[in-house]
């Protein structure tokens, strides 16, 4: 089995497991709906208030969902005691890492897509014309969150205080992703385009690339017994 086949195997395995009971997906979708209601209650019916804060609110939600998804990436293995099985998979552990990152991006991406639609619906914002750019930014941001998140999720899978540690460790590291994603999303929602914000896109691209590489190289040390 070559590298890409191994990566795909990991991804496909997780997709099928999730497909069976959809526990993670359902929880995240439910969470996203609650979040949108919270936005409304927190900011009141004033549309300009929400308009000004939309980018920040959405990404606050996305990072919280991301943290939950990260904790979940290795949860199945931990519950079924198959962490050992992952480790015994022949070949490059980097394939496991990439498979998990792709899995996280797919899962979160699906939820983000639905969240955008719901947001447009509940707050009477025209989402459809901007959906592609919004999703583009969302994917860039989610790749960043996942690249770092999967690495630490693998660590947390072995710790007892796991759930508590993950957000504490991840959030400071992910601040650049948050700032970039918030700013870009805000611009898209308000102006419809990201003219003049190219540097933020470059920042996301650099972040994603750098940490995918670092994660890929160091994952083997996290997986070791």
């Amino acid at each position: 089995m070559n590298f890409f086949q191994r990566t795909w195997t990991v991804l496909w395995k997780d997709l099928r497991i999730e497909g069976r009971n959809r526990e993670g997906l359902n929880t995240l979708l439910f969470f996203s709906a609650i979040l949108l209601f919270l936005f409304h209650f927190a900011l009141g019916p004033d549309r300009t208030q929400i308009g000004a804060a939309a980018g920040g609110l959405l990404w606050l939600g996305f990072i919280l969902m991301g943290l939950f998804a990260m904790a979940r990436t290795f949860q199945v293995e931990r519950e079924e005691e198959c962490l050992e099985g992952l480790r015994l998979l022949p070949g490059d552990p980097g394939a496991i890492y990439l498979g998990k990152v792709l899995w996280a991006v797919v899962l979160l991406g699906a939820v983000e897509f639905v969240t955008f639609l719901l947001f447009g619906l509940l707050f009477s914002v025209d989402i459809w014309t901007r959906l592609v750019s919004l999703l583009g930014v969302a994917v860039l941001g989610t790749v960043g969150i996942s690249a770092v998140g999967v690495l630490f999720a693998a660590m947390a899978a072995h710790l007892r205080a796991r759930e508590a540690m993950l957000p504490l460790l991840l959030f400071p590291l992910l601040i650049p992703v948050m700032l970039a994603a918030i700013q870009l999303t805000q611009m898209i929602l308000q102006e419809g385009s990201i003219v003049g914000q190219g540097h933020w896109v470059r920042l996301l691209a650099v972040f994603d690339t750098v940490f995918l590489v670092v994660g890929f190289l160091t994952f083997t040390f996290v997986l070791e017994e």
Partner: protein
Amino acid sequence: MRSSRVRSILGIFAMLGVTAALYLGLIWAPPDAYQGQVQRIMYVHVPAAWVAYLAFFVVFVCSILFLWRGSQIFDQVAYASAEVGVVFTGLAILAGSIWGKPTWGVWWTWDARLTTTAILLLVYVGYLMLRSVVEDRFRGARYAAVLGIIGFIDIPIIHKSVEWWRTLHQAPSVMRPEGSTVAPPMLFTLLVSVAAFTVLYLYLLAQRLHLERLDAEILEKNREA
């Protein structure tokens, strides 16, 4: 040379350096043309921040070496340097805050450098927490090494993103904290202070490393027993 001899010598030089820096900073150096006397706090804040970055760079290098080579000494230096680094980061923030009150009128402002330093503190406090939470010493070392690498690489990215974010929401601050360091006596004082703090860092690092090695010795003895 025995390690206690090295540490004593470092300690003496550290004390000499700090005394010299104190005299220069508090008495010899002239007050700043714009900020007045308060600028003297920069002779504490800037060196502390410099040492913090140095300490985390040491953590970064030792983390890589530890993962690559596996020698325990790299892990020990990394842990020691991280702890010392956190102390200096805290002091840098404290001194910066005290400088900020008479200068800007507030104890805290979300200016790019202060914010980045605060994030730095969060990241490496997380490092120390990760260390203390993981029971298996060898696993903890590996996890911390990964964090030590990721954290340091993230620093310039965090700084850039916070800087851009700041200029979006407020005009860049006019005053540079160092003041008019063009003036030779001020530059000289600053350099001496930085040198003094660096020697102090080396001394504290040596002491903290000694502590780490004692811990390792105890662990070894427990294992033999």
